[in-house]
């Protein structure tokens, strides 16, 4: 048996992009699908059914109307710019998490910077003690929802506490059948290893949902997005959702994770002890993989980490510019950066 070894040539490139090839001179319609953990979007009104005590005008965070409005304006500023390089309409669909209720999303949609897009929202109240839920905002010009369901996730390590549901929204995106799964998996509190079984449990549920959808309709395009509290290389994603990172080596029964290569280059959406994590990811199934762009297919992924959403002051400069740190009001955006992918479809003549 002979083995042939060839030399590996690797070229380094200054240009740092993961864009797929779109044909020059061809017209495309672009759909930007994003996800953002917006860090505790609460209104200032007390909801007796939830523990929103910290986020009231007299609560520990002194969460008053002016802070609430500034937060909405900041979020709108980012949503306005997400994907602007591809389309002035920004995200057509935006998964979100840490949303208190549907009202805050209605307030967000009315913000001046994005009001013209007429965003609508879907949120199903879940059992999380702090009252935050995943949600979906969408531009009705692009997306027509048909059905929304939420699925419970049970904590393996702690039966007393409740965690966030997985939100599933079915609908037509530019006429094509889509399913969006919006996740907010259990946190790493107590340690990554100790809490790992909880995220694996969530992963299994998400994967099961996706399998059921595909079983009934193999052509439906599925985007599993969320704040997974795990990186693209962690077990919950790699092994339980089952993902791969390279479009040259696709696997039919697995999900493509455009964030995995970003993560390996040290790009992240939040930082801890000077290390970047990329907890916020959007996973796509086979029908979304790029081929001829006759239907909506993936072409690019971005993390929205422009300088203005980064903290500019103090020892933690370079980190995401948060709204609140340890009870101290910072007036920023979120402790996570937003992420988005670009889908393209040739304009039919």
């Amino acid at each position, binding site marked *: 048996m002979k083995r042939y070894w060839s030399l*590996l040539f690797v070229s380094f490139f200054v240009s740092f*992009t993961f864009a797929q090839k779109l044909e020059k001179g061809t*017209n495309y319609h672009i759909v930007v699908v994003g996800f953002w953990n917006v860090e505790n979007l609460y209104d200032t009104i007390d909801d007796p059914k939830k523990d929103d005590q910290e986020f009231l005008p007299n609560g520990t965070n002194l969460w008053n109307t002016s802070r609430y409005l500034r937060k909405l304006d900041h979020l709108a500023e980012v949503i306005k710019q997400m994907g602007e390089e591809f389309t002035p309409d920004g995200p057509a669909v935006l998964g979100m998490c840490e949303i208190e209720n549907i009202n805050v999303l209605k307030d967000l949609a009315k913000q001046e910077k994005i009001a013209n897009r007429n965003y609508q929202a879907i949120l199903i109240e879940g059992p999380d003690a702090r009252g935050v839920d995943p949600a979906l905002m969408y531009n009705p010009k692009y997306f027509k929802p048909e059905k929304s369901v939420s699925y419970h996730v049970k904590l393996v390590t702690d039966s007393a506490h409740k965690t966030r549901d997985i939100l599933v929204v079915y609908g037509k995106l530019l006429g094509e059948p889509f399913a969006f799964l919006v996740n907010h998996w259990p946190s790493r509190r107590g340690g990554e290893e100790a809490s790992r079984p909880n995220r694996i449990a969530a992963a299994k549920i998400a994967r099961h949902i996706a399998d059921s959808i595909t079983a009934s309709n193999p052509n439906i395009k599925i985007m599993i997005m969320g704040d997974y509290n795990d990186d693209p290389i962690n077990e919950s994603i790699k092994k339980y959702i089952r993902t791969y990172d390279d479009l040259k080596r696709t696997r039919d029964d697995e999900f493509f994770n455009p964030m995995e290569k970003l993560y390996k280059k040290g790009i992240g959406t939040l930082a801890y002890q000077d290390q970047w994590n990329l907890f916020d990811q959007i996973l796509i199934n086979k029908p979304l993989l790029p081929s001829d762009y006759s239907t909506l297919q993936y072409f690019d992924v971005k993390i929205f980490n422009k300088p203005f959403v980064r903290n500019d002051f103090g020892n933690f400069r370079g980190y995401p510019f948060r709204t609140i740190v340890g009870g101290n009001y910072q007036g920023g955006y979120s402790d996570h950066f937003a992420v988005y992918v670009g889908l*393209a479809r040739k304009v039919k003549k």
Partner: protein
Amino acid sequence: MKKLFLLIGSLSFCYQSYFTQTDSIPSDTAKTKEEDFHIPVYSVTSDESDAESNAQDIASLLQASRDIYLSYGSFHLASVNFRLRGLPADQSMVMINGINMVNPELGYASWSNWGGLNDVMRFPEIRIGVTPSRYAFSPSAGYTFIDSRASLFKKGTRFSYANSNRIFQHRVMLTHSTGMMSNGWAITVSASARLSDTSYYPGTYFNSQSYYLSIEKRINDQHSIALTAFYADIERARKGMATQEVYNLVGNNFYNPYWGYQQGKKRNGYITNNAHPTAILTHINTISEKTKWITSASFSYGKNKSTNVTWYDAANPNPIYYKYLPSYYANTNPAYAQILTQLWKTDVNTQQLRWDDFYQANYGNLFTVFDVDGVPGKNFEGKRSKYIVQANNTDSKIFNFSSYINSRIDKFFVSGGINGSYNILHHYKTAEDLLGGDFWLDYDIFARGLTTDYLYYQNDIEHPNKLIRKGDIFGYNYNINIQRYEGWGQVEYNTAKVDVYGALSLSYSSIFRDGLMKNGKFPDNSKGKSPTKTFFNYGIKGGATYKINGKNYVTINAMYNTKPTDFQNIFISPQTRNDYINPIQNEECLASDINYYANFGFLKARATYYFYQYKNLTYLRSYFHDAYNTIVNYIMTGVNTQHQGIELGLEAKFLRGFTATAVLGYGEFIYTNRPLAQAWRNNSGEQLFSDRTVYLKNYKIGGTPQTVAGLGLRYNSKKFWYAGVYFNYFADMYIEPNPDRRTEAAISKYLPSDPQWQQLLGQEKLPAKYTIDANIGKSFRIKHKYTLGINGSVSNLLNNKTIISNGIEQLRYDANDPMKFPNKYNYAMGLTYMLMINFNF
């Protein structure tokens, strides 16, 4: 047969894109769907020049965590005087709430001024080496910026108790914070006490109480004001160095010559008291989300007192005075040497200060003073002390202000500001304890023999023959008045792949001496103001960070700056006269470093090469010079040094819960030229010599290990306990050279083949050693609200008592007999521990 193909990385081009708006249906698109209405169309061109603007931004290097190399060295190698890059202390800047805490005369900040207030001085922003700084122009070793304001502390209370055998035996700390309250106020208080009957070295102790109060008012989302005040009141009894002969005689490497028994109780004659209360008022103006303007003003009033035992017309009280050692009699009187050796081994009164004898000598010295206070006929008879405890005092009044702006303007981050300080340092000597006598007389005994003029040897000719009582000022009394003002600016520019910065500083400093005592040796030049010396200085700094990707960064930095002559060396003999050294030159610094940072998740590392040069440093010591048989003021000017080397700090996480840390510092810190020395007779102002070449080139800078290495392994359990073991190695520690021994005058009699040649010129290198440290701890969560932590750490686990931590060459030397005054050493402590319990609620 299996063929293995390896892919060649494919070229990927980035295309610029633009979109067009089409509001109407194109005429030949009859089949366009309803949904295509008003949906923008996007098309790709191959304009690569705009590729940058669409490229994914790489975040700037994050540096919130402690530097691995620096924190390892500062903790595990403190006992052997680890100093970053071997740099002098005046190359670091320490700021609290925007105020530079430097003592302008010493050139560095004293951390002991807020010692014991660990709870409220945590989590500083530390940047090392040549680095951009957004608060002031930072010097070549970097800066530490502590933001300590009431609103930054979490609401709650923290109590800790620590038990140790190293410096203090007991330490209690209590801190309470209200957090930011809904009325916009926040208050934090902290207090701590460190107590010991005895510290590790015999005859030493450490006692302190520290207090802290910070009150902050958030006026609105834009303005906030904080008042932070603190002080640490410290008393510590010191340890003195000794020659190896003495350590061998006593049979104990921790022998301390600074104490003795007084009526059966241990008493130390060399005690330092330090208290430096400081208040800082800070205004934070968040003009916009992108701009902050911070203004601070502070006042600090300090007292520093350091005692020693002095004598007149009596035997030297110092137990290790060279004539009290057997070696002095080895050749001339071996029988007596034998007797002395026995006494040294067994008799504590030979080994230590003989307080009872001092008292007896004072009791027995009935003396008549004529013309007290210069009044003819005013005589006094009483016990004139032959021995007293005197203190060198420095009281300081320091006023400081600082105002700077930080602002993000698109891709630029702009910083700039002004700061200034006005300082009065009052130096004077006091009689602390007359040891049973009634008075002390303030004469310069070295000046006594020179003339019959009785005023000549008076330190205070306006009160000649004054009877010095306990607490009286005598000996010397003067103020040093220092001002410094700086304007600075810095611009940082961030792009997707590269960050660059440039900074500039312009400063003005002035100094003068204001003598408060008219000295008999220099009647026209001791009392009153000296001329003022002014300095105009500048600094420039710049660097770049190349972001290979989010996991690999390379940075390069360089700076050049000037600063005034070291203010501790600028007066020839500040205790007696207003004269400056000559020449007075600005010090210069040229510093550069290149760094690689890796952040791979499981592995974090920094590798650095640095190259620093300092020019026109000065050196000044006053000591008894054997060749001239008098106290001299010995000065070197134009001293140049160089520090270069590599640093490596690495932290790797592996298996489950293990963290390995490895650090390596390999440096070369040397003198690079042959400075010129001059010497003045202290008791007359006569210049003994000038322009004497000191052959200092290539001698090593002493006092710190030039090679350090460390390897630590720590396990963090899921159950919230941890344990760690650390192996520390240090080598290439040299003893700072006595410049006068490296001159033609010193070796004039000898040939290179003579043993005295090497004895005079050789520089002692202390033996390389290693130590092992360990720590263990556990934290508990009680009722989901309270946390309890228990931590124990042991340094020098192997209890190695043979580690010399530092040494000195005696300034007094006999060129005829170089071994007569051998080097003195200090040994690092053996096994020491600290056990701490802290409770948060």
